[in-house]
């Protein structure tokens, strides 16, 4: 069942695009009726195939040729079944029904996908207090930042102090910060798109301070590292407040 929605979407898209291929290539019968009714049609591509002297292949009619009853008859004698025309008409579109069906399939597929997504989020939101929850991840972030902030006086003086800072912050980026980013669906389910946007907006500002601290540590700019850690901690309050529960 998990594959039903993507399969439906894929098949519907394929059907819709296949249907579009005949939008400008109606049956010759339909063209004949239109020409007889006085409609002015022009060929959009060469049509028909004739073998000339010396075996050279050439079209019976070239692109741009005006379709007249005589030309249509000539093309029919040449075995042509469809022609490409420059003018589109729903009445001449042989696969219009397929396009409409594919559109319905795409809508149904979208409904199924959203329903499945809601079910998945509902299942995972039961783990609100789990170690993988964004709230728990933010708590770990706070703990790590506090620890680093407290150790900064020592780390400044140590030979490999800044190296340890990049290592700690790198670990933070790869684990707890990543956990928050992977919780997108859960956060949207809890707070809607508006709540998610407000949270991510604040979160990103804090995250950028952590990234800046990492860069500063890589450049041995200890003062900048200290400033960034303090700013990140200050911003974390708002981030946690904005996290939808």
């Amino acid at each position, binding site marked *: 069942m998990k594959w039903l929605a993507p399969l439906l979407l894929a098949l519907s898209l394929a059907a819709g695009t296949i249907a579009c291929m005949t939008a400008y290539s109606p049956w010759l019968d339909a063209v004949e009726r239109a020409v007889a009714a006085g409609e002015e049609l022009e060929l959009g*591509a060469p049509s028909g195939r004739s073998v000339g002297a010396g075996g050279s292949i050439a079209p019976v009619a070239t692109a741009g040729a005006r379709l007249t009853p005589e030309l249509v008859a000539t093309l029919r004698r040449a075995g042509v079944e469809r022609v490409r025309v420059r003018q*589109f008409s729903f009445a001449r579109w042989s696969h219009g029904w397929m396009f409409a069906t594919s559109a319905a399939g795409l809508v149904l597929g979208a409904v199924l996908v959203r329903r499945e997504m809601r079910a998945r989020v509902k299942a995972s939101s039961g783990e609100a207090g789990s170690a993988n929850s964004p709230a728990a991840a933010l708590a770990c972030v706070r703990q790590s930042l506090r620890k680093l902030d407290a150790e900064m006086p020592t780390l400044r003086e140590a030979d490999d102090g800044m190296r340890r800072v990049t290592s700690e912050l790198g670990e933070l980026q790869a684990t707890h910060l990543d956990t928050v980013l992977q919780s997108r669906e859960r956060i949207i389910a809890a707070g809607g798109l508006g709540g*998610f946007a407000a949270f991510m907006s*604040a979160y990103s500002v804090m995250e950028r301070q952590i990234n800046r601290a*990492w860069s500063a540590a890589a450049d041995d700019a200890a003062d900048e590292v200290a400033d960034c850690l303090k700013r990140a901690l200050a911003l974390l309050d708002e981030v946690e407040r904005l996290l939808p529960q």
Partner: protein
Amino acid sequence: MTWHSAYREVTPAAIVLAVLIGIVMNAAITYAGLKIGFTIGGSAIAAVLGFGILRGILRRGSVLETNIFQTVASAVNTSNSGVIFTVPVLILLGHSLTWMSGDFWLVTIACIAGAVLGTVFIIPLRKQMIDIERLRFPTAMGVAVILKAPGAGVKRSLVLVAGIVVSALLFLPVGLPQLGFPGYGALGNAIFGAGQAIFTDTTIDVGRVIGIPPQAQVVFALAPFALGAGFITGRPGLFVLAGGVLAYWILAPLAFSLGWMPETTTAAGATGYAFTAFNRPLGIGLLLGGALMGVLISLPSIREAFKGLFASKGARGRDELGFKPIAIAGVVGLVLLFLAATYVGSEPINKTCPVTGESVGLASPDTRDFGGYTVAFSGAEAAATWETRKTEADRVSYLESINAKPGLLAGLPLWLRSAIIALIGALWIWFAGIIIAQCTGMTDWSPISGMALLTVVLILFLAGSAAVVGAVMIGAALCVAVTLAADMMADLRTGHLVGAIPRRQQVTEISVVAIGPVVAMLVVLIIAQANMAQGGPALGPGAPNGAIAPQAQALQAVIIGVQGGQMPYALYGFGAFLGALLGLGAFSGLGVLIGLSMYLPFIYIATYGIGCVANMLVTHFKGRRWCEDWGIPFAAGMIVGESILALVINIVVLAKAGGG
């Protein structure tokens, strides 16, 4: 904003050196683009050069200073793709671009306007695209890996270097033929026989090897950068591959087999026919519809993003460029577009007098406005005859005889036509910038040529089928705008990953964006004039130095098609409808991804797809963390290696051409 904080970020050294490097890159890549049809992104090259110059030679560059360096250099370089996709069309259509011609400077001004508009218009969406939606921007991630190399540890830096070396080695036989040495094609001839088309200098035709019919194209580009970009994109990139599979492995072969193509179409020509007849219009339509749906669904994020522009100066407000400078820059850009549109609209469209048949020049003082066009006459008497003795039917017939169909705005005075075109052009630039930035963010591919095509069609529809100069001018402005929009957003993504303050990158980029279009335009002019001095055409087929301008030729074909009423507008509409419906599901950008790859060259999409699959396999067997820690740096190296080697080869070729 503190320019002299203790931690080095925005420095005169970074800006000045970056501008110089950007100019050199721009010139070399403009020349290469005129020959091969596509350009190289400059951010990765700039990051490596910045690293080498600031940290290696000057011994004082910081991570953030190098980030500013690559921001500035790529901003100066990037506009070349916008210029080469559009401006050469004017030359191909017979217009003369010289130092003395008003058209040259007008188009340059339009490109500068586009550069400013593209950069400022996308800034308000930084928060939405990068902070909230977290668009990946694969190359930008690779650039961040380069910038962070000093602190990432020796092992990871070595992995990055390994990626660069492997990429350069793989790409070398692709580039050698440009220097006159044998490449992969010679190897292919040795294996499969002389004249074979299975293993060429740039591609490998797997389909032919395994016996797949030629109407289904199974050809892969020998492009390490595509592999690297695909790897960094990962699983979402499979949607891009899906669009290519649909177009080249399902639609084209099916249409050929069912007889839905002209009877004279061969199996080998099926792909080409399918591209023009339905894959391109459907793909572009899907892209547009998908982008529109994406914007609608992202409205909450966009609303939040705009809040930041008007935020009071707190820690968050200070990070972003405010609304006032953006509005000022936007108005300046709009005015430049208006002035350019007015001047172009006042130029006569005819070369001979409709009454006397004598030649008339652009500077003819006797002109009349008719059908939305300016018509020139050989003298006051001829102009009076036109007004008093010629009937309306005669006048309309004359316009038809020179293929000048009236546009939608034909009945309006010139100043109003120009104002509307400038406004619609600016709005379209805004929307197209969003599309391009989203595409680049999701996949690293940007459908600039598709946007250029739509822009030209839009302006011809508004101003009339003979308003080619105006259409190309706005098209050039748009192309430059969207390339800079994508570049700005990618640089901001890199900046986010290294902790840069967005406002600093935004201000430095806006300060230098005008340089790039001037450089690119001058290079096009120099190359065109050098070709004419050698007795050949300025550009296009037969140009002495091989500057065939393939993308411009494609745009020329579209313009001729529009003028001849050959555009399949319904297919664009149906594609847009399908693209919008695709965006209703969980992933609003689905229509954009699939549409994009339906009309991009499949050879690169196929190689890109291999990279995506490689990421999925590595993640499956070694875990996500391992893939991010080791796979991404190697993939970043793959992007950088080809870029640097391609630039070096282009510089050598340019130097040889200049010396010759």
